[in-house]
């Protein structure tokens, strides 16, 4: 059923911008008057079409089929707005859906708040909103309330989006760094580094002749398949800014364990490796938007790997390491030449190196 909805929404991508909308965002679109109304009626409501939104109320009223909930919020400010493999809209939906999934929740509802810069082409807003719908349908979530503001030209970067999300927890697992145990096995859901390189290539004008597409995707269905199989998950973390290394270090510090990983087992696509060589970057620290690590009880590791690899999104999944008791609060990488070193958190963004 979900799949069919996904198909329909892809058709939706092709539906043209309503002709009776102005071609650029103006301050009046945020003024609360006729143009604001028009923007909501012609652009947002048809795209996010659902019964909760139809009530045209100040907020959304809904029933929740669970006592345990997860609630999260995130703001999206990516530049460029549209990049190979996605745009700020798909990112804003997938990012928040993934945060809910990492809490062990089944994502249900999102909010969407837009800060638009005067002069933003309506065509771009349209594309972004359509991608949000596609992404939401794919992840099985509804966007049920929202907000729009317009700022003066020069006071924004085209468009900023904030999404908050609510999900339900339908199992008794405590998914948290504190649940990590020595002996746990660390798995990664796929190859790393694509989103960061895609963005950097598009932003810095690196002159790559071919594109690397962002891995931007919702991992909630993949995570759900692990719950459905009763895998004993101890912790999960999506690999966003700071990459795999940062996510593991954060977990090791909170849980006061040692996470040991093997460089050779970490999947990195050849073209991403090539781009990293050119730029002097370490893929372990490059951002992702559709990858996560999951730490499971050792007995469940093989089954977890099988489940992940069965899904197209997880077909590059690997077991990359194990958890040990000491040295506490460290992540130790076994390098390709067989030596070991500790991974450290980055200070700020990675900058391309000269040699």
């Amino acid at each position, binding site marked *: 059923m979900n799949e069919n909805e996904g198909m329909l929404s892809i058709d939706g991508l092709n539906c043209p911008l309503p002709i009776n909308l102005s071609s650029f965002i103006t301050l009046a679109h945020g003024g609360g008057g006729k143009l604001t109304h028009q923007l909501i009626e012609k652009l947002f409501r048809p795209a996010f079409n659902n019964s909760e939104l139809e009530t045209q109320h100040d907020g959304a009223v809904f029933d929740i089929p669970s006592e345990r909930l997860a609630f999260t919020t995130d703001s999206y400010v990516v530049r460029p707005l549209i990049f190979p493999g996605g745009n700020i809209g798909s990112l804003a939906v997938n990012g928040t859906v993934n945060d809910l999934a990492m809490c062990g929740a089944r994502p249900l509802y999102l909010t969407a708040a837009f800060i638009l810069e005067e002069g933003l082409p309506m065509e771009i807003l349209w594309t972004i909103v359509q991608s949000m719908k596609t992404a939401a349908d794919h992840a099985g979530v509804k966007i049920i309330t929202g907000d729009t503001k317009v700022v003066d030209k020069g006071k924004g970067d085209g468009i900023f989006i904030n999404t908050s999300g609510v999900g339900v927890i339908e199992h008794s697992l405590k998914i948290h760094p504190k649940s990590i145990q020595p002996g746990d096995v660390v798995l990664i859901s796929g190859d790393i580094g694509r989103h960061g390189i895609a963005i950097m290539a598009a932003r810095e004008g690196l002159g790559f002749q071919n594109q690397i597409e962002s891995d931007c995707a919702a991992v909630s269905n993949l995570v759900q398949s692990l719950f459905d199989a009763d895998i004993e998950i101890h912790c999960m973390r999506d690999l966003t800014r700071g990459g795999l290394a940062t996510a593991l270090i954060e977990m090791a510090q909170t849980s006061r364990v040692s996470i040991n990983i093997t460089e050779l087992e970490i999947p990195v696509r050849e073209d991403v490796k090539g781009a990293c060589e050119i730029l002097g970057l370490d893929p372990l620290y490059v951002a992702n938007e559709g990858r996560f690590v999951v730490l499971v009880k050792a007995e469940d590791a093989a089954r977890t790997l099988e489940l992940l690899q069965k899904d197209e999104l997880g077909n590059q999944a690997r077991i990359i390491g194990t958890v040990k008791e000491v040295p506490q609060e460290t992540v130790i990488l076994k390098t390709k*030449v*067989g*030596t070991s*070193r500790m991974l450290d958190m980055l200070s*700020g963004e990675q900058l391309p*190196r*000269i040699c």
Partner: protein
Amino acid sequence: MKYVDEYRNSREADLFANAIRQSTTQSWTLMEICGGQTHSIAKYSLQDLLPKEISLLHGPGCPVCVTPISLIDKAVHIAAQPDVIFCSFGDMLRVPGSREDLLTVKSKGGDLRIVYSPMDALKIAQDNPQKEVVFFAIGFETTAPANAMAIYKAKLDDIKNISFLVSQVIVPPAIRTILDSPENRVQGFLAAGHVCTVMGYREYEPISKDYRIPIVVTGFEPLDILQGIYLCVKQLEEGRAEVENQYSRSVLKEGNLSAQKIIQEVFQIVPRQWRGIGEIAQSGLGLREAYARFDAENKFSCEIHSQERSSECISGLILQGIKKPNECQAFGKSCTPEFPLGATMVSTEGACAAYYRYQSVQS
């Protein structure tokens, strides 16, 4: 990637490590002279594969680290001018000047662009005729052909709105300075493979002879470095002092002649300040008279009194191989990559930052 992956291999690294162990009968202190090698040694914890007798020192081979503070201050001053687009390699942005770094200029609204090649700066100049474009032309001999070509092209195409803030340095005079120091501990050098790809290695022969010291031209991958160390140790153990070429897949004895020709055309040998070390005679490249109008220091005159922020920092001693990063009191305490006191903590090719970021589990 072919010709990269096979040089990062544990089985072969072990074989070299064994060979080094078997050849070593006493303590030896070696220095690698290239920031790329320092980076690899730290990233792959290569020291852990070596016997205790072999000690590696990390030379002044990071172009970002040795760029003098006065020039960083000039860069900061120029980049903050309205109507200037300041172009730089990425890792120069965080290098601390007397008061601020280039990244701070950017956050205050300066138009700062990270470029991958100096030719990108030329294109930016052509695309923005109403702006003054300045490129921070730093580097060793490896980068000199690219910088020289950009300057040569600027003159050829008569591009008027570009200039270059030049801090080109050359390796051999720095090696002599290290060896001349009464505190010198270095007994063998790994010379920089890409520097020698451009310049060849003839100029290292008199150094090796004068100081009776082995010099092995070495690549950057783990296996290259291990082989370079092996060759160097073998020479030391056998009492030889020669120039050897480990990186023969890229380096010819005479180097790259067409690159040398353009370097000659655009640059002349000048004295140059090295951050942490001081002035070294004939250790830099400066623009020839015919290219003087592309000199950013002429175009933007500025009086700046530069001063290092910290007296605690011993990066000069580290760059000369007299001290190791972890022998510095400030290392990892008041000096971290977030708040670097000296340039060697800034770039990951700098010895301090490499030590900080890539901590071996054994040490």
